[in-house]
């Protein structure tokens, strides 16, 4: 199955291109910067910091920024994965990171598809903020460490 993925034209281009891998890495970093840079302040507000700042305009700015960052990171991440599918698939750190990404994205999705940020109870907001922090901070670290571990 991993060999099939590695034989796809975009996988071949990622492995052999002169600049493609570098540009896709750069896009991945940009996506992470947008995602984490936006979600972190929002999460801190949700768990109870800076309650003097109104939540609605804060969320109106930070939620689409984080969602855009996540979309960029997912597409570029899929391409980076294609450069060596079997390598990544054989590593527990990779799957741990994917689990954290699923936790972070899933918790945000559940909140937005459920009550929505504006109508959620304070306890529900605190839970969403805490889950999000617990997912994205270690996911970022785990992703970076993938480059430095076997």
């Amino acid at each position: 199955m991993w060999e099939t993925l590695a034989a796809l034209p975009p996988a071949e281009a990622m492995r052999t291109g002169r600049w493609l891998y570098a540009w896709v890495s750069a896009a991945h970093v940009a996506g992470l910067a947008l995602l984490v840079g936006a979600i972190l302040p929002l999460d801190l507000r949700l768990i109870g910091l800076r309650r003097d700042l109104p939540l609605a305009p804060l969320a109106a700015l930070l939620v689409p920024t984080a969602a855009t960052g996540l979309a960029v990171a997912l597409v570029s991440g899929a391409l980076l994965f294609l450069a060596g599918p079997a390598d990544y698939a054989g590593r527990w750190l990779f799957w741990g990171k994917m689990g954290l990404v699923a936790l972070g994205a899933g918790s945000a999705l559940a909140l937005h598809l459920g009550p929505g940020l504006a109508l959620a109870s304070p306890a529900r907001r605190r839970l969403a903020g805490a889950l999000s922090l617990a997912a994205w901070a270690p996911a970022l670290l785990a992703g970076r460490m993938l480059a430095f571990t076997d």
Partner: protein
Amino acid sequence: MSALRLPLSAALVAALALPALAHHGWRWTTGDNIELTGVIREADLGNPHGVLTVEAEDETWTVEVGQPWRNERAGLTEAMLAPGVEATFIGEPSADLEDRLMKAERIRIGERMHELYPERS
């Protein structure tokens, strides 16, 4: 928040192991060159860097070579970095020699020397 503890401790362990495992740059190497002659047994070429498994007498080494553009610039084709090819690798080993890991600066195949890092020689 036990969901946080496992990934964090794992990342910490990974961070501590970092100097020995980092592939990028030359900081993890000894700073001195060694020469390794052997037969390529496995080749995993491509971005972000190519990795060869080389059998040299009774030892098995992992030799890091260049990305496709660097190998090509040095005049190395995929057929020259393929299993069965005998070559001499000149480069820096990991500071811990027990790793049996080196990063090639140049590769000699037959009579021809291929410079992966011309600026380092």
